[in-house]
């Protein structure tokens, strides 16, 4: 899928220039690009490749290797549900099913109206207060059906 929403070549060049001279600059550049655009726009890849004197394939390889880098903008809200073992032990499967059915999307998908992206996450390190979730960067522990319902309601705002 080709997406160029919100693309700004000057801003991208400024971000690349900011990190270019640090050691191992690629991940910091990609993090900053994603922070600015919400995803890694495809036209950014050749610019990064050029600046770091590496091939475009290498940049694309890195962008697609890491789960964090998005290839399209996320929904307005991002709800991440921890699906790792400590949360499984406390009922995360049922919570994921509840979210999927209420939001009408599967884990890893964005709703058609662009309102919410539902994602699995493999461990937020909140394993002693599991199950856990993260909504728009805010962490939530001791998640249960009622608390999840409130989080789902937040995504409709």
């Amino acid at each position, binding site marked *: 899928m080709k997406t160029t929403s919100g693309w700004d070549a000057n801003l991208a060049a400024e971000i690349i220039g900011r990190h270019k001279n640090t*050691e*191992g*600059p*690629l*991940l*910091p550049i*990609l*993090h900053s690009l994603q922070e600015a655009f919400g995803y890694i726009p495809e036209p950014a890849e050749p610019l990064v490749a050029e600046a*770091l004197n590496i091939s475009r394939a*290498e940049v694309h*390889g*890195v962008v697609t*290797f*890491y*789960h*964090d*880098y998005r290839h399209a903008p996320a929904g307005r809200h991002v709800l991440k549900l921890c699906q*790792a*073992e*400590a*949360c*499984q*032990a*406390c009922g995360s499967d049922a919570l994921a099913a509840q979210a999927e059915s209420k939001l009408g999307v599967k884990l890893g998908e964005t709703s058609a109206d662009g309102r919410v992206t539902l994602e699995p*996450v*493999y*461990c*937020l*390190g*909140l*394993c*002693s*207060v*599991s199950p*856990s979730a993260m909504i728009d*960067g805010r*962490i*939530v*522990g*001791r998640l249960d059906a009622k608390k999840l319902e409130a989080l789902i309601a937040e995504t409709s705002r």
Partner: protein
Amino acid sequence: MSAPTGSLRVYVPGDAAAVACGADDIAKTIRDLAAKKNVAVQVIRNGSRGMHWLEPMLEVETGEGRIAYGPVEAADAESVFEAMLTTGGEHKLRVGKPEDHPFMKKQTRLTFARCGIVDPRSLEDYCAHGGYRGLNKALAKPANIVAEVTQSGLRGRGGAGFPTGIKWKTVADTKAEQKYIVCNADEGDSGTFADRMIMEGDPFVLIEGMTIAGIAVGATKGYIYIRSEYPHAIDVMNDAIRAARQGGVLGDKVCGSAYVFDLEVRVGAGAYVCGEETALLDSLEGKRGQVRAKPPLPAHKGLFGKPTVINNVLSLATVPIIMDKGAEFYKNFGMGRSRGTMPIQLAGNLNYGGLFETAFGITLGELVDDIGGGCFTGRPVKAVQVGGPLGAYFPRALFDTPFDYEAFAAKDGLIGHGGIVVFDDTVDMAKQARFAMEFCAIESCGKCTPCRIGSTRGVETVDRIMKGIERDKNLAVLTDLCNTMKFGSLCALGGFTPYPVMSALTHFPEDFGGAPRLEAAE
């Protein structure tokens, strides 16, 4: 600290486990109430003491020490604050002195000595609680650091258990113009949060440990690679590094000496495999986080091809106390070849989850039943996964296994990074075995075939077994596949995924459609 003297000191943890249970809102409520009642209150965002079932656990400083209350929910905040105003008075949530709680009294806190006690962003507070004593002793005899760490018996707390001192010696003995200290803070194992707690609760101990490592091996630059799922830890570490530079304990003249050492935080991007040390180095260099073949060892050719010490957060955070109290002191804790203490993380379906640091040798049963208090669902414990997604599932029959690298290996398991995840009797072990393979398939870096393809074939094979399709033949295939992955994979991801799979199959055959294993057979 700018609060007026004589103001009431209230501690509201900033640890992510407390924040996830509402601590930020409670901190704000306390500040608002103080303003409304016109009382001078200083709110300190400390780390967590580790009694996570009591989080958010608030504390107030009184003449008799700190008095705790927890778990404090929004509705309780005002009444708890009222109780605090009467110098730690009665309340239904009153815990008393945290250090007197049985969960704390049973521990030996060496690595976590200050966690939950100090203000994590205050270098002054760190030094007032014994911080930088280790570094000052190291500076007095820098040539002795490596020997001291070796003699302490400290082994890699990330899971591999390799002697830390030997790693350091290899780097120290390798000549190079540039060397690096890399801290592996890519704590991706489910059931583990000790690295996160140290970074959020006592970040200077990690900075001090890395600085000592730099002095010991001749490295001037260090990187802390923190996973992106830990935004709170990233914030605190960055603040602490800035404070350390300002305080002169990091930078051009470490503590006024001729040594140079500086640190930088780098953030991961959601790849579990980057917790493997060579994949982490590739990621730091800006590549796909793929595992490197060894040799060369990172100690010879590590980050950017330079000699590199790469250690887990807990290993590095334990070095200051070893340098301060001496190798003998540390070595005297523990059993067999597992010396010192291990910060054990109790997680999953438990009544009393949290951080429990103790000398090696405590049994799994004591940890799960006595310390952890069994399942919070009130149901019997069926299985316990020790050491993260790559660790084995232990049945109750093996609860007498002592927490020790070798003892766990002898039972076809591993202690890994010290995480314990407890499941009650509703768990389906075939499903857990399937998840282990599925997780490996999602997270495989793709470099070696046994891991990349074996994990996907593993999911399919478990699916067939669960459906009862040619069960015996498929069990043989699964066992053979696990063997190939175990011995043919390049790193622990493919190599250890067979542990949860085979342990589930061995100890819980009934979940795979077989006859239950007789307890007597253990």
